[in-house]
């Protein structure tokens, strides 16, 4: 392995993933632009959150970074290595350093494999430990993620959702990666358990100096875990900023709408919400111009939005927005 180089641990440049989507036999081949030119970097030890509605391409982006899905074009740097240029053997070696925890805790575990075996398998495959030593490691990992080591002989269907997600985390951690893609790790969990898992992830990050790409579909959890946030819409990043400025004053109308759509558990807060009209368009034929213009509530929206695509511009240091009118952001809805 190369020595740690300075600069970001992961740098994604102009990443594109198009899925072939022609449905009819003799039709012109068409593409579903799931990820369409994303640039994003993660520094060591930080958590970057990726937020957006369903179908905006978050999972696809996360999987591309690990090359579980082969990107159409773009570059991914991991600690100075060009990930997409690696052969399969080198890639397998690199997979020791980057891992993923999946959106669906039940589906990500082999139903026919005891969960202890599932966590032990990567240890043996990568020759980290075997036999008794491996079993001890598994027990330690189980304890680290807050699971009773006696659960190792259980099968996935014998565990609760929260326990399965913890197994998923233990398995990802087993090979001591530096970087973790967390694909909606708590969305499928009960509220009371969700908080436990979020706290577990924060503690692990601190103790192991992990770097997280934290995918979420709303902005509530993100506020408690992320250092920086990237908001995705139709395969593109529309706003990227540090947490505090983003939540204080969203500059993109989509970010503002997402923020105001999250319900707040306080009956006295009668917020004026920005309710977006319509639904996210199909990535099969995204609207021309600004991809968001079909739903944009910005009062200044005009003909330019429907023809010119706004570039992702750096408005303030470390603050990028793709909106023609980002200098005049929408009023934050008054509490």
């Amino acid at each position, binding site marked *: 392995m190369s020595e740690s180089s300075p600069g970001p641990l992961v740098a994604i440049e102009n990443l594109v993933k198009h899925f072939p989507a022609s449905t009819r036999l003799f039709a012109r081949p068409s593409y579903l632009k799931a990820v369409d030119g994303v640039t994003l970097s993660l520094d060591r030890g930080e958590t970057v959150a990726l937020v957006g509605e369903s179908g905006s391409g978050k999972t696809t982006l996360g999987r591309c970074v690990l090359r579980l899905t082969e990107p159409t074009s773009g570059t991914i740097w991991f600690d100075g290595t060009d990930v997409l240029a690696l052969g399969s053997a080198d890639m397998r070696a690199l997979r020791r350093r980057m891992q993923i925890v999946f959106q669906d805790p039940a589906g990500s575990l082999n139903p026919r494999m005891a969960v202890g075996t599932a966590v032990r398998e990567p240890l043996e495959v990568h020759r980290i430990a075997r036999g008794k030593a491996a079993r001890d490691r598994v027990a330690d990992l189980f304890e680290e993620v807050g699971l009773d080591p006696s659960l190792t002989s259980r099968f996935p269907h014998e565990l609760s959702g929260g326990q399965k997600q913890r197994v998923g985390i233990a398995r990802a951690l087993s090979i001591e990666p530096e970087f973790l893609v967390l694909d909606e790790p708590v969305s499928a969990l009960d509220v009371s358990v969700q908080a436990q898992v979020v706290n577990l992830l924060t503690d692990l990050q601190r103790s192991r100096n992990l770097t997280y790409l934290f995918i979420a579909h709303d902005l509530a959890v993100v506020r408690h875990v992320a250092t920086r946030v990237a908001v995705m819409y139709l395969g593109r990043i529309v706003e990227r900023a540090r947490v505090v400025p983003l939540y204080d004053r969203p500059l993109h109308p989509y970010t503002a709408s997402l923020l105001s759509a999250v319900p707040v558990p*306080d*009956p006295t807060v009668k917020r004026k919400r920005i309710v977006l009209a319509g639904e996210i368009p199909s990535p099969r034929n995204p609207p021309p111009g600004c991809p968001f213009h079909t739903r944009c509530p910005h009062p200044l929206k005009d003909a330019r939005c429907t023809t010119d695509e706004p570039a992702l511009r750096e408005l303030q240091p470390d603050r990028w927005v793709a909106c023609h009118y980002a200098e005049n952001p929408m009023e934050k809805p008054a509490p």
Partner: protein
Amino acid sequence: MTALLRVRHLSTSFQTEAGLVRAVDDVSFDLAEGETLGLVGESGSGKTVTALSILRLIPQPPGAFGPESRIEYDGVDLLRLPSRELRKVRGAQIAMIFQEPMSSLNPVLTVGSQISEAIRAHEPVSRKEANDRAVELLDLVGIPEPGRRFRDYPHQMSGGMQQRVMIGMALSCRPKILIADEPTTALDVTIQAQILDLLLELKERFAMSVLFITHDLGVLAGVADRVAVMYGGSIVEQGPVRAVFEQPAHPYTRGLLHAVPRVDRPSDRIEGIPGSVPTATAWPSGCRFHPRCSECMKRCEVDAPPSYSAGTDHTARCWLLDQSEGQRQ
């Protein structure tokens, strides 16, 4: 306000291979005219079973109601109504929308024909008339181009659109009560906001009472007048929405409120509730929350607490509220 629906000592259990599942256990609440009652609880707490019990949609067997159970609508006990009479109540007086819109719509019929069929099931109108009403309903629930979408199949619609269709179908006979079982859980926050607005607007317009089921306290705060918190098959706390959110009396409610990540507050650690939600085949003894409760006392492990008053119209089932023995306060 008079109670339109009165649920008393509702117990619903299922006989399964794994043993007797006591899904709902001694649940009582009132739903007043024009009121929205929010029923909140985590997965498996018995919310859906409560809703299905009201319309007697529980398959019997394996399901069975306890002998004390009563569900009074308009003075009649729905649990003891002959099924012909019950059918006149279902859909026409009390309508329900389900957790998963996709699986509650028939995939091989157009959405329009499903709505018009729902109308014709209760009213003697011609097919033509029913179809026209169905188009109106699609328009009412905010589906663009209702005349064209009438002929769509469910899979041609997004989740949000399907849920709108479900709402339209539920409203087809102008019911007095609408039971909404997690109508927005499967949807994005942006679409959730649209559907919630739609529901609130329609509720006002048709002066309905709503039993709104959710696991999201945030959603609840925005829609409910009164709140009932479910845990382990029973209602552990119930009261006006402000009272429950501002002075939660049950440790579970308090824990739940702390566990919700808030978008409107700067980041700090969210506190979860230790342990996990118990399963319905093996409820813990005594107070069902006791293994996870930070204020658990000896008696909590043994005896199930009764319902104590915690303020006006505000009750909670927790031994902490018992003042007779002077153990606390």
